């Protein structure tokens, strides 16, 4: 397996609590890797540590060959790690299209600096076209002109996914993309994530076990700040330690 992200001995504490207590994790290029675990296992903390929102107290985060554990978030995005949030993070009072266009514009390697002050941004029509493509991909082409705040919750989550994709990450971190969604919206989001299979490396944190076991190529189980298993869905499903620690008897 071609490794994209390798985490070793990662630790982070809050007061006396070691939310991340020696995590080892390897994510291969192109896989959809799910991260599951009981509440308080440290899933979101791990996402924060990988994305750069938090700094680790110890350990290494090697991404595409370089240790990025001490890099700022925006540097990590430039290297190819983009995240979504549990709680929707969009630009509510900007048009839907502009939300995605800003995500496209953020790619310095393709367009150059965002400090250009004279030329109108609308003159970069390729950015706008690309933003429209991303909107089409998540099924929001019709909503391009609306304000983001006027979208339904599920549409806002889809918009957020489009924004994350528009940064063209090598690794996409999705923190509970279905949080707060109804069944129909969840199904749509699952389809969207499934459509990334094979072309986009994803680390997915999700509570819905049906979706996790259906979408993931591999699953890591986080318990009390440690990864206890990292394997294919079938192996994880039947793993005795996982059953005991987390799944209980829910999964047959």
């Amino acid at each position: 397996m071609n490794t994209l992200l390798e985490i070793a001995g990662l630790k982070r504490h809050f007061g006396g609590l070691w939310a991340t207590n020696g995590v080892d994790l390897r994510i291969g290029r192109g896989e959809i890797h799910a991260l599951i675990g009981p509440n308080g296992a440290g899933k979101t903390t791990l996402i924060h540590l990988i994305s750069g929102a938090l700094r680790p107290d110890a350990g290494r985060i090697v991404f595409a060959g370089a240790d990025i554990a001490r890099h700022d978030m925006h540097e990590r995005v430039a290297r190819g790690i983009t995240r979504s949030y549990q709680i929707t993070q969009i630009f509510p009072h900007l048009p839907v299209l502009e939300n995605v266009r800003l995500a496209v514009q953020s790619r310095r390697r393709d367009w150059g600096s965002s400090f250009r002050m004279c030329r109108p941004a609308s003159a970069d029509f390729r950015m706008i076209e690309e933003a429209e493509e991303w909107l089409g991909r998540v099924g929001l082409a019709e909503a391009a002109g609306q304000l983001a705040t006027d979208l339904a919750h599920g549409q806002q989550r889809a918009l957020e996914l489009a924004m994350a994709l528009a940064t063209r990450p090598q690794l996409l971190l999705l923190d509970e993309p279905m949080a707060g969604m109804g069944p129909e919206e969840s199904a749509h989001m699952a389809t969207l994530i499934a459509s990334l299979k094979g072309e986009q490396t994803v680390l997915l944190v999700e509570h819905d076990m049906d979706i996790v076991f259906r979408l993931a190529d591999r699953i890591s189980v986080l318990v009390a700040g440690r990864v206890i298993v990292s394997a294919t869905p079938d192996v994880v499903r039947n793993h005795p330690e996982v059953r005991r620690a987390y799944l209980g008897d829910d999964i047959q």
Partner: protein
Amino acid sequence: MKASPRSNAIEAAVLFVAALLPFLLQAMGEEFYIGFATRLLIFALAATSLNFIVGYGGMVAFGHAAFFGGGAYIVAFLMQAGIVSAWIAWPLAVLAAVVASLAIGALSLRTRGVYFIMITLAFAQMIYYSIISLQSAGGDDGLPLEQRSTLAPFDLASDMTLYWVALAALAGCLIALRRLANSRYGRALAGLRQNEQRMEALGYPVDRLKLVCFVIGAGIAGLAGALLVNQNGLASPTQLYWTQSGMLLVMVILGGVGQRYGGMLGAIALLGLEEALGLMTEYAHLYIGLALLAVVLFAPRGLAGLAGLTDLRRA
């Protein structure tokens, strides 16, 4: 967000009338008001520069007097040292404001909200107390200007010329601001005002974007200060004091936070009210306070919003 041909025509008409104003006042025998109008333009420029930081950059800075008054002092210092030419002194005033704001901004931008307000205030007050304790800066009395800067080939000694220079500076600033608002950088600032965390997560260097905004605003304030000292004939400590920062903030709020014409309208309204009410009553500031209260409560987009001059989407 694009300017319509109609609003372009209105802008051109206003600029044309403003350019002819000195002749008009002269014809009416009211030359005194040329100076007052110049003062309005200079404060409009300073308030616009603060509005750029507050309204476009989303940073409530409470130390703008440091750059505005600082620009005035730099020109006065340089004149004492024998440098009379505006072509040298004014860019140096801008440069000084830029350098100072780089340092102040880099430190202050580690904080947010109320802390940012307090730390910018603290830095500005430090500069104020440093200047008034300097003998060579004239202490409490300030630093008089022996003559106006020279701006060859223009004759800046003429009040009318100074008026036009101030008008050109303000018009140039407003035009630049419109271009900037629609540029990549302007769009990035718009994103920043709405959701800083999202901008960071998209890979934007948030702190640097804000610092550049802070520095641009400060630089323009430095230029306004250079103009002000020429208008007043004196660089005075009150121009550095926190009340000056407060007054500029009041102008911005009155005129419309984040509205391109907000700073200008606020400056004209505040100084105009002060002048008009000052002639009629001793309690001018009471009425100005009430007007501010009314704007905050009933017209969140300020006078620019009331006048329908809202060209910038607000968060």
